[in-house]
């Protein structure tokens, strides 16, 4: 994770380096062309999970904090957005705002608790808090318990655009996904992002330089939770279901896996990882419970032999920044 760009040799452009600009253009072209070749619904789901993984990567990749409870923000945003759209009859844009705000609030509380401990404890605390909120979701009336919230209406965006048709929804998801991606990219390359990386590399040193690192960590945590929430809120409208799967611990593990496979601390890794893992789940759905075993094997292989991930490995081979 320690590839620091040399500012003298690297050509910078609007998106950081030239290689990143090219990768972004390729990504854009693929996402515009892809619905003509495969199911738009699958692609939209992939984009939601990619945004989720990007949000998660903001913490692990740039602050060095492993949150093992990101399902909490994803799942609760998904519940609230589904509830707002279905039971309160809110239009989709407001439903997403409600879901995302819920995640931000949860992130603020959980983050404030979790940053009180370091390292491995941080992971355990986030996991435990997520499990607590899973039990709350299991008990709460509005979540529908085991059934979840089903047939969530997509509605009309701003009262005009019908999201019921696949094209309209696809464009909407694509725009939000790209906006989320660019926002995260902006955060990473801002002075704020530089402080986060300094904390990742050497926290005591950052403290001695006068940075209130706890405040930066909390801010990063809330941003990550909010963006994970945006992904979850969007997902509830895409697949029109919010269920317990989204808040349960395997979901937290899945986002870790996506990011790990794509490449921790890379800009494009989480996107590649999310598409790879979802494609695998989709292709291997006939294998039932064995998918769980395969995911476990991927975890083990990645940690032992492939810690850079797909994108990290490519970036390393060609000595570029991705």
């Amino acid at each position, binding site marked *: 994770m320690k590839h620091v760009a040399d500012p003298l040799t690297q050509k910078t452009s609007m998106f950081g380096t030239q290689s990143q600009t090219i990768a972004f253009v390729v990504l854009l072209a693929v996402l515009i062309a892809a619905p003509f070749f495969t199911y738009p619904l699958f692609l939209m789901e992939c984009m939601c999970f990619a945004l989720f993984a990007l949000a998660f990567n903001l913490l692990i990749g740039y602050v060095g904090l*492993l949150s093992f409870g990101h399902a909490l923000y994803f799942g609760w945003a998904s519940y609230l957005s589904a509830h707002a759209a279905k039971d309160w009859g809110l239009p989709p844009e407001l439903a997403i705002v409600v879901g995302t705000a819920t995640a931000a609030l949860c992130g603020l509380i959980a983050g404030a608790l*979790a940053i*009180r401990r370091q390292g491995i404890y941080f992971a355990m605390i986030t996991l435990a808090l997520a*499990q607590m909120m899973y039990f709350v979701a299991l008990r709460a009336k509005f979540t529908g318990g085991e059934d979840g919230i089903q047939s969530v209406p997509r509605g009309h965006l701003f009262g005009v655009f019908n999201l019921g048709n696949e094209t309209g929804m696809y464009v909407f998801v694509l725009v939000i996904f790209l906006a989320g991606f660019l926002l995260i990219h902006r955060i990473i390359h801002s002075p704020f992002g530089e402080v986060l990386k300094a904390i990742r590399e050497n926290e005591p040193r950052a403290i001695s330089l006068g940075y209130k690192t706890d405040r930066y960590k909390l801010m990063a945590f809330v941003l990550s939770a909010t963006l994970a929430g945006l992904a979850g809120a969007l997902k509830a409208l895409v697949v029109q279901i919010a269920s317990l799967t989204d808040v349960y611990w395997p979901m937290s593990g899945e986002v870790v896996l996506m990011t790990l496979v794509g490449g921790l601390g890379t800009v494009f890794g989480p996107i590649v990882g999310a598409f790879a893992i979802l494609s695998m789940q989709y292709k291997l759905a006939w294998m039932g419970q064995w998918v*769980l075993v395969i995911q*476990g094997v991927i*975890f*083990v292989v990645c940690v032992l032999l492939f*810690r850079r991930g797909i994108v990290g490995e490519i970036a390393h081979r060609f000595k570029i920044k991705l």
Partner: protein
Amino acid sequence: MTTIFGVPSMALFGQLLIGLINGSFYALLSLGLAVIFGMLNIINFAHGAQYMLGAVAAYLLLNYLGIGYWPALIIAPIVVGAIGIVIERLFLQWLYKLDHLYGLLLTFGLALIIEGVGRNYLGTAGLPYTLPDSLRGGHNLGFMFLPNYRAWVIGVSLVVCFGTWFAIERTRLGAYLRAATENPTLVRAFGINVPRMITLTYGFGVALAAFAGVMAAPIYNVSPNMGSELIIVVFAVVVIGGMGSILGAIFSGFGLGIVEGLTKVFYPEASNTVIFVVMAIVLLVRPAGLFGRRT
């Protein structure tokens, strides 16, 4: 019928007993986690899966080989502990120089593999494990009914927990172990085979989890999911107690089991979440944990 705070005393003591039983498992598992973390610097996410393996081993021994509870209590931990040693040699030994997080991720992957294989062969429904005749029945203590098996579980857990504490804090081997935790390089310089000690420590921690699994088999059904839910609660217990002290792990395990039992009596809706709430409060009041020395 006597009542305490408006609750029938039978129900109160019954839930307290269940709390103590759960507490025994929390204590045994968080003890294993603490011992492993001390030596390997790895949080063993697979601990829950290894606990499940212990229960499954007992079930298989009984139903396929006709080997009963008592031998299983010895055989299952040895078998699962041996698997643990293989895991340490094959996978974990390559991670000691890396960030702690990789150990968590790798053992998480192992937990998924073990649980996934379990679900394929055992199904997700629980399988019943029959109690040995010698531990059936129970005693009426006047204020409550005490089943023999439950009394046995609490007693044995206490013995095992304090036995482990004694072995680590009061024996020569334990002194080596503590020294190796503090400064492995120096201990190696004294001619002690630290890598082997690390391997055996992991095997012991895993065997402890499997032992808890065998004891849990007759109480909860044997199912592939029994470990994963439990391990997350045990993580919360570990955060509350802090992993710096063995006694801390034991006390917080039993204490939180009792707290959970009492919650079931007075406010059942919160019984699943109470330990996490306690964790949040401890983090606010004493961020280092109740018995923690380091942050």
